[in-house]
């Protein structure tokens, strides 16, 4: 998929675990895992907002577009 989710990179920079992040953004571990492993098909703005707030970053820090070709 051309959209790459760099959630693990930001989590490592902010030194926050998956459990802590799931509590902060009010998302289940399984959903967060789906996002982290790149299996998600879509993300709600509300979720993106909550993650950016929790990790103190911009959407561009988490989402990256990479052309498959």
């Amino acid at each position, binding site marked *: 998929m051309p959209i790459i989710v760099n959630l693990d990179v930001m989590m490592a920079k902010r030194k926050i675990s998956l459990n802590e992040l799931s509590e902060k953004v009010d*998302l289940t571990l399984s*959903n*967060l895992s*789906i*996002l982290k492993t790149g*299996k*998600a*098909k*879509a*993300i*709600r703005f509300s*979720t993106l907002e909550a993650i950016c707030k929790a990790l103190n970053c911009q959407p561009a820090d988490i989402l990256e577009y990479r052309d498959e070709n």
Partner: protein
Amino acid sequence: MSKTNNFVFTVLKIVSWLIFVGLCIEAGGLIVNFIFSLYKPEFVHNLYQKLDLSEIYNKSKWAFFGMYSFILFISILKAYLFYVVIKLVTKINLLKPFNNFVAQQIMQISYSTFLIGIISYVARQTAKNLQHHGYVVDNLNQFWEDSQAFILMAAVIYIIATIFKKGVEIQTENDLTV
């Protein structure tokens, strides 16, 4: 899920099982008769449900085996159709019905129904043709009088299956939306 829906679904399961058993008995009886007619032609005048095809057999064995093959194929396909229906009603989870298994089963039902309709139609036309050549085939019409209904049903089920497949896609996308 309301209690009424559950009750209707349970009734549907029971009815499907009853019809399936009936169709299996019919198909089994026809298969046994077919095998008997190969080795003991005297049984041809008293087949399943008192069917008498001795006239066709005496006139032409090919016509007899051809028409009997149509009857056999249609009855086996009908039994298979209800087997798929039973598989579907047994395994479906009404709380989360939109999954690939259900979509596949509905598509399978559509294909089987279409096949039954087409073969019934071809058999009916073949029987009409044989009638023009002097064969008495009136007693065979009971096996393929509903061919058009099966084709119509197949078309409707195919549309439902296509809509269901779209539902599965939307469900999957919804499940993977965080």
